[in-house]
């Protein structure tokens, strides 16, 4: 077992009682990584030297100056820039890149007193659902090392599930926090678009990307979101909406809560175990006094197509900055500038990234713009309107996070379309911009399943309240992978 079995609150109590120090916790993180990461393969860069020094300093800070996350270790997805700590987006094109400033969320982690342990693997530029698209390594699912951890924040979820760190940050463009959280049996929140600053998040699809917390329990997740959320002058799309005390929302009371269950989320393509686990979860919430009604989100089936057009179009523009001139990989033996661009990008990007850059470039080209890009934006309007309508009468929408548990490594790599279908239940929320969480709600063949709870714009508090009530009424979050015991 590990110290990280405890919640933030429990860890702080132990520290205050003198049973644990911040230095102990940092040491525990690196010991767990040394012991388990040979199997899990979650970490890219390590911050051990600085983190250890920081921990020793922080142990001297008086208790009254410490917040609820003070001194706790966290892993950060490798598309979030960290000054002086290599940041690659798991791409060859950024090999050796040393950021010269911190992302706003990284500054906020520091203000909260959290200790950045290292950088976490991902699908290259967050494009993928399995972490198999990393240039550096394939992260494994701690519940079964033959299976993927999900993606693109696969290692962010796997590191928490393995108990290497109690907290991590991921990013979610089409499900990249929630799907790996579901596959790894942890709690992952994609906040409302604009809730968390994107400054310092290497952009994939700017109108969809959002940073969010991954943790082992709902309360820790609420604490971490509160620490990173808020308006940022450096991100003009961050919202000027007050950040509530999310932990205060965890009352356990869901009496009278109106839950909508879209029939599209439990129909064709969704596995029987995932379906049954959601139906059982709804019974739990009904037992706590919530009401459940079936609704329809009729444009859900168009979300996947609209998403791939829009996200790839935005990516084709965002990734044009990687040209080998100012940072990262630069191709050698080229004689002119155009060849330098083309060779750097051809050698520096993996196939999935190239596919999406080309799809995006094609969608935005004269002659196809109206048929693809504009049409997809109009579909987005219709998808968003579905959510607006349901939220007139309901407090939350509930469904599965993914159609199945984690698939096997190598199973879907040859067919992009099958791979894309893993995100069919998470993509619509990014298009609509609404917040959504995945929490553990069952198992199939020893692999975790996730329950997705979707809320109104900027109403993460209600999502946390429901998630917490469910968590307290069930035991799923107490299960840990076998690797916690032995080795």
């Amino acid at each position, binding site marked *: 077992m590990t110290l990280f079995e405890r919640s933030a609150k429990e860890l702080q109590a132990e520290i205050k009682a003198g049973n644990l120090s911040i230095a102990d916790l940092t040491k525990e993180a690196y010991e767990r990584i040394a012991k388990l990461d040979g199997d899990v393969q979650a970490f890219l860069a390590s911050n051990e030297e600085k983190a250890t020094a920081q921990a020793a300093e922080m142990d001297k800070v008086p208790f009254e100056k410490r917040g609820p996350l003070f001194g706790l270790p966290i892993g950060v997805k490798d598309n979030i820039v960290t000054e002086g700590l290599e940041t690659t987006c798991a791409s060859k094109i950024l090999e050796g*890149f*040393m950021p*010269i*400033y911190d992302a706003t969320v990284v500054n906020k982690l520091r203000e909260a007193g959290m200790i950045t342990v290292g950088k976490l693997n991902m699908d290259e530029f967050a494009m993928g659902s399995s972490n198999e698209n990393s240039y550096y390594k394939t992260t494994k699912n701690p519940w079964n090392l033959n299976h993927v951890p999900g993606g693109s924040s696969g290692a962010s979820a796997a590191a928490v599930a393995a108990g290497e760190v109690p907290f991590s940050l991921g990013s979610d463009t089409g499900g990249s926090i929630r799907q790996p959280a579901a596959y790894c049996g942890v709690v992952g929140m994609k906040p409302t*678009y*604009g809730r968390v600053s994107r400054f310092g998040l290497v952009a994939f699809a700017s*109108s969809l990307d959002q940073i969010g917390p991954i943790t082992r329990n709902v309360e820790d997740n609420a604490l971490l979101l509160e620490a990173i959320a808020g308006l940022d002058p450096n991100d*003009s*799309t961050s*919202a000027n909406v007050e950040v509530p005390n999310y932990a205060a929302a965890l009352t356990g009371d869901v009496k009278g809560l109106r839950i909508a269950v879209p029939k599209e989320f439990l129909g064709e393509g969704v596995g029987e175990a995932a379906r049954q686990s959601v139906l059982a979860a709804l019974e739990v919430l009904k037992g706590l006094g919530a009401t459940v009604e079936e609704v329809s989100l009729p*444009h859900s*089936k*168009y979300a996947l*197509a609209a998403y*791939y*057009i829009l996200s790839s179009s935005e990516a*084709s523009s965002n990734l*044009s900055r990687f040209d*080998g*001139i*100012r*940072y*990262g990989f*630069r191709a050698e033996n080229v*004689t*002119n*500038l155009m060849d*330098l*661009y*083309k*060779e750097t*990008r*051809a050698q520096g*990007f993996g196939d999935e990234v*190239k*596919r999406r*850059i*080309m*799809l995006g*470039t*094609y969608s935005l*080209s004269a002659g*196809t713009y109206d*048929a*693809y890009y*504009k*049409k*997809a*934006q*109009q*579909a*987005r*309007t*219709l998808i*968003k309107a579905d959510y607006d309508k349901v939220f007139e009468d309901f407090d939350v929408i509930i469904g599965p996070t993914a159609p199945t548990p984690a698939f096997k490594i190598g199973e879907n790599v040859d067919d*992009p*379309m099958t791979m894309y279908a893993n995100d069919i239940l998470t993509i619509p929320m990014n*298009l*609509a*911009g609404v917040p959504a969480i995945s929490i553990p709600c069952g198992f199939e063949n020893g692999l975790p399943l996730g329950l997705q709870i979707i809320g109104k714009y900027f109403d993460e508090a209600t999502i946390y309240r429901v998630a917490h009530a469910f968590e307290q009424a069930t035991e799923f979050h107490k299960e840990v992978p076998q690797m916690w015991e032995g080795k």
Partner: protein
Amino acid sequence: MAKLTKEEVKHVANLARLAITEEEAEKFAEQLGKITDFAEQLNELDTTNVEPTTHVLPLVNVMREDVAVKGLDREVMMLNVKEQEDGQVKVPAIM
């Protein structure tokens, strides 16, 4: 819309500044063709008079006070530049 041809893929790769081999062009033509085929289902939607959504929040022209702030140091900004000379970024000949 027809399946993407190899020539179209090469054209798009050029626009995207990606060097591409014949074999890659063939492979990507097939894969991108599948994806665009799938995207055809959007044509089932009647989008007459539907405004396109570029952004989900009702934000327009976010401005700040026009006050000068210190930027990053030039030396720091050059740290990741592979080839440089006298504080300037160096590139191969344009022509």
